């Protein structure tokens, strides 16, 4: 569904992504792990069209989207929930969701959008009473749920999440990941960037480990859960 081929991205003279290649198949949850500064955010932002790639190809649904702008990419079903949530703080929660469904509402899909908002509230019941609240006043966890909802409401085929667990209490992270699993069960494909390697490995089908701008390791979750390098560097356990 999504294929990254030999992607290189940099800021000025600084190369951050160096020959990154990986694939995400229909219906999978893929985790992309990596330590601080490994280039995870840069990779997702480039895929979402916020950065230009220096070289390489990004293929989504058989279309070469490497040169596309962010709005067009989001419009064809590839959505990013950016690092740090990035809600529109002066808009209400409801308005944030409406903006997420902008194209569908423009196309006259008001009924369907309303139904999906209902579905989102089933997933995150805590948001139900906050719909009229300004998004900037929500707690970090609530903001993360709305950020996911805002992307979900656009009915993407593939949802990319940049560290959704950032700053959340472990109990919240658990229910958040539970919700992500439900989204997948509903037919959505997920690409998940995480520092919380254990949690991410628990729900993913396959994972890639990003180091210094390219893939160091990859495999299905059991392979990686047992891999000495992953155990040591990402799960904080002694190998063997």
């Amino acid at each position, binding site marked *: 569904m999504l294929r990254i081929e030999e992607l290189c991205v940099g800021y000025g003279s600084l190369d951050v992504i160096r020959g990154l290649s990986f694939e995400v198949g229909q219906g999978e949850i893929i985790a992309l792990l990596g330590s601080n500064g490994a280039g995870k955010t840069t990779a997702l932002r480039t895929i979402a069209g916020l950065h230009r790639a220096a070289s390489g190809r990004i293929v989504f649904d058989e279309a070469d989207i490497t040169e596309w702008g962010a*709005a067009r990419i989001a419009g064809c079903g590839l959505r990013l929930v950016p690092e740090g949530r990035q809600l529109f703080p002066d808009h209400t929660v409801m308005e944030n969701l409406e903006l997420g469904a902008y194209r569908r509402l423009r196309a006259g899909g008001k009924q369907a959008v309303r139904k999906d908002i209902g579905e989102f509230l089933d997933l995150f019941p805590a948001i139900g009473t906050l719909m009229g609240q300004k998004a900037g006043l929500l707690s970090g966890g609530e903001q993360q749920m709305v950020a996911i909802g805002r992307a979900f409401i656009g009915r993407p085929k593939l949802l990319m999440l940049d560290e959704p667990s950032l700053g959340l209490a472990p109990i919240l992270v658990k229910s958040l990941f539970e919700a992500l699993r439900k989204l997948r069960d509903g037919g959505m494909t997920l690409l998940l960037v995480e520092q919380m390697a254990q949690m991410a490995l628990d729900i993913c089908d396959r994972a890639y480990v990003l180091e210094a701008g390219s893939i160091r390791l990859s495999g299905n979750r059991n392979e990686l859960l047992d891999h000495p390098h992953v155990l040591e560097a990402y799960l904080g356990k002694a190998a063997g």
Partner: protein
Amino acid sequence: MEFFLHILISGIATGAIYSLIAVGYSITFSTMQILNFALGMWVMIGGMLTLTFNVMFGLDLAVTLLALIVVMILLGIVGERVSVHPFFRAGSDVWVMSTLAVGFLFINVAELIWGRNPEPVPPFFGDGIIAVGAFAIFPQQLLVIVSALVIFLALHLFYYRTLLGKAFRATAHSSEVTSLMGINTRLICVLSYVITSVLAGVAGFIIVPITFAEAQMGTVLGLKAFAIAIIAGLGAPRGILVCGIAYGALEGLASGYFYTGIRDILGFSLMILVLFLRPEGLFGTPSSERA
């Protein structure tokens, strides 16, 4: 008392015009962080088009307004394309010069087409006066005030009640995140420029019977409106309405009771004072408080 009321009311009418132009600066500033510095000259084009369609071609006012809006939309699209878009990159501030250049071009073209002599445009509702006791107002002044209020209300409804308006506000917060919603932010930037252009044109339409049609009719208006946008805060449309009207009233009273020369000193002195004491404007949000 009659004198006081009279200058107060004409001051308020002038202030309403300032607000209408000033809000134009704020619209493009919030979506693109750029200003059309020559907005006063765009007001003049609105006045000249009114002269042409209404007086020279003899079209009635509604048709004149409609035709004017169409021309301002086209000019807005072209103006954005040539004077903003090519320079619209982070760090480039060439647009300061290029938008001004378009304004000076407008003045030159206007002098070529319409000459240098001020041409009168008859008031829309005749030159009678509406009087209730000591309270007297020209119908054109009343029209100016009512139009400004209606336009501000419409803008408010647009920003807060329509999906497109909400997308404008989202773009003002972060064009990057807005584009992640699949929203074409480039289109929103062009639209905001076009709205600004239409507002300036409409301002020219409603004041030209008061100012006369001439190539320089908008220059000082545009500058004062700029001062008001800065005094109120570029991100605060409602503040701009309040400040514009208060400023117009103050200016009217000051020049009525002291001497006319004070008019032009007042605005810029106030602007510098506000910039010094509260750089974000009286109604603006300080950048450190921004989420």
